[in-house]
């Protein structure tokens, strides 16, 4: 999702820069250059109202088109309507020139209408602009022909004019389009690479996690299952049964370890308790205090003692979890045989204590949150 947002942002910002550029060009062109040309040639226009009206109408079209474009609100329909209106206005303006004046010192509308087309049709397929530029050029040619002014010199000037107006306008629009496409392509490639990297990292993590579980299964569970299959281990033997119970609880805890839930340690202890309850052991599980976030390895060591005692419990077990800012204490009391107690698991990030009273085994593991120094 983030990648999509970034991609959209980069492409949008680039297109916006191009839009601001073309709005500025057209603004300077019409409000600056056209105004000067119209004022300078004012006495020769006939009727003068047509020249003034055309200038004003183009100013309105320009303002409307610019605002819509910059607000990203220029629809296909309004773009075409405005471009058509600009073309018609161009006809009116050209009609007010003196005969044969469609190319010359007093002509201004040809070039302007072309730039309007660039502005209004910048988001439309290129052929729409080509149509407008063609029609715009045809207006000038039509007026020259009607005036009977298409002599040798005028045709040369006309061809040069086509290069400097329609040619430049088309090139500008084409390049802007290429740049936009290039930017979009670049951001798409970058986003694709980021997505690929993220997916590869996630895949690696999942793979490492599977590898770890598989190693565990191969080392602990496989010999047990193989022994049972080969009839070297007797399912009636209490030791074998306890080993199976312990491995079942370990597997269950291992699967619970990667669950994404608010209190993973409590969740893992619950899954150990669940396995014991299925064997008919009555388990009480109590937790008080706010559990801090604990690394997976610490959770594993904290849960290990409870797991072993729960797997060995005969009928009843009490599991408690107490969290304070100083330490986290996990304890289990159960009617379990004393040989359940083995060496503490892993490095001594946790400490444990055992005590026996009658047939009750009491195991406590503590993890200091702020070790005394």
């Amino acid at each position, binding site marked *: 999702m983030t990648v999509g947002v970034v991609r959209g942002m980069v492409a949008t910002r680039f297109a916006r820069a191009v839009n601001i550029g073309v709005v500025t060009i057209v603004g300077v062109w019409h409000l600056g250059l056209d105004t000067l040309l119209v004022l300078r040639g004012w006495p020769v226009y006939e009727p003068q109202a047509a020249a003034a009206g055309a200038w004003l109408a183009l100013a309105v079209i320009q303002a409307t088109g610019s605002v819509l474009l910059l607000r990203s609100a220029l629809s296909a329909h309004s773009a075409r309507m405005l471009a058509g209106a600009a073309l018609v206005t161009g006809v009116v303006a050209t009609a007010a020139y003196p005969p044969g004046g469609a190319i010359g010192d007093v002509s201004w509308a040809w070039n302007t209408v072309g730039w309007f087309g660039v502005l209004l049709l910048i988001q439309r397929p290129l052929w729409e602009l080509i149509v407008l530029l063609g029609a715009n050029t045809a207006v000038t040619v039509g007026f020259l022909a009607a005036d009977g002014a298409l002599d040798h010199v005028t045709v040369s000037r006309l061809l040069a004019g086509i290069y400097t107006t329609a040619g430049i306008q088309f090139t500008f629009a084409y390049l802007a389009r290429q740049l936009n496409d290039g930017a979009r392509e670049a951001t798409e490639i970058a986003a694709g690479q980021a997505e690929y990297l993220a997916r590869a990292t996630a895949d690696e993590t999942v793979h490492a996690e599977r590898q770890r579980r598989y190693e565990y299964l191969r080392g602990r569970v496989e010999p047990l299952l193989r022994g049972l299959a080969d009839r070297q281990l007797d399912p009636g033997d209490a030791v074998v049964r306890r080993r199976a119970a312990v491995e079942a609880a370990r597997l269950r805890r291992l699967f619970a370890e990667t669950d994404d839930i608010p209190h993973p340690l409590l969740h893992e202890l619950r899954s150990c308790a669940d396995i014991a309850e299925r064997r008919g052991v009555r388990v009480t599980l109590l937790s*008080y205090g706010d559990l801090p976030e604990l690394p997976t390895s610490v959770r594993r060591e904290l849960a290990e003692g409870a797991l072993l005692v729960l797997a060995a419990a005969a009928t009843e077990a*009490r599991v*408690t979890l*107490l*969290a304070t800012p100083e330490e986290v204490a996990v*304890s289990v*009391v159960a009617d379990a045989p004393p040989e359940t107690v083995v060496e503490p698991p892993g490095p001594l990030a946790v400490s444990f204590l055992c005590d026996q009273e009658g047939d*009750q085994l009491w195991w406590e593991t503590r993890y200091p949150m702020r070790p005394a120094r």
Partner: protein
Amino acid sequence: MVGDPISDATGSLTVAITDDHPVVIEGIQTWLSEEPRISVVYTGETLEVPPGVADVLILDLNLHGRLVIDAVATLAAAGQRVIAFSQFTEQRVVLEVLEAGACEFVAKNEGRAHLVNTVLAAAGDRPYVTPTAAGVLVGDRGANRPKLSSQERTALLWWFQSMSKASVARRMGVSVHTVDVYIRRARVKYAQVGRNAPTKADMLARAIEDGLVKPDDITGYESAAAGEG
């Protein structure tokens, strides 16, 4: 339904029971009937308990679907000793009930011995801490919790874990009596937390009389800032 006064009471220590499940009332009556010093004089299903009807009121915290912690405060303010008896063992609920002035909190799964011991202790304004309440107190990180000594904390934690004072005593290297003193002293310190209630004042006064605490012991509050240090 209005409660039923019971006439054939024999023991010297009177108990009232309020619970919205008749089977629970009968169960509690059976438990208490094995203790000759106790007689149940009143049972009911609502909060309309006649004032001073018994020495101790055993109150179910969830009556007809509503938690009645505020009612505990009202009853305690009127001097009624209340034992909160509930299956809701969340830390917040237990702390609020004790803060409201209940003599003790007993979880419904904690069994006969704890309930009987609690009634006997409460009638004499003496503290009794069930393993569940011990876990709540030692895990309390509230801003105005009282300052407990390290032995008191250890005794509460191990009592919560093991439910055997003999085991705790063996592990701490002290007598069972000493373990009991640590636990009761910790509980008495909680009687000075929050709003005043006659039940709390009675417990403090009795603790001083019994020599469980000295007046100096119970004046120091542990501030929130000190708790962070």
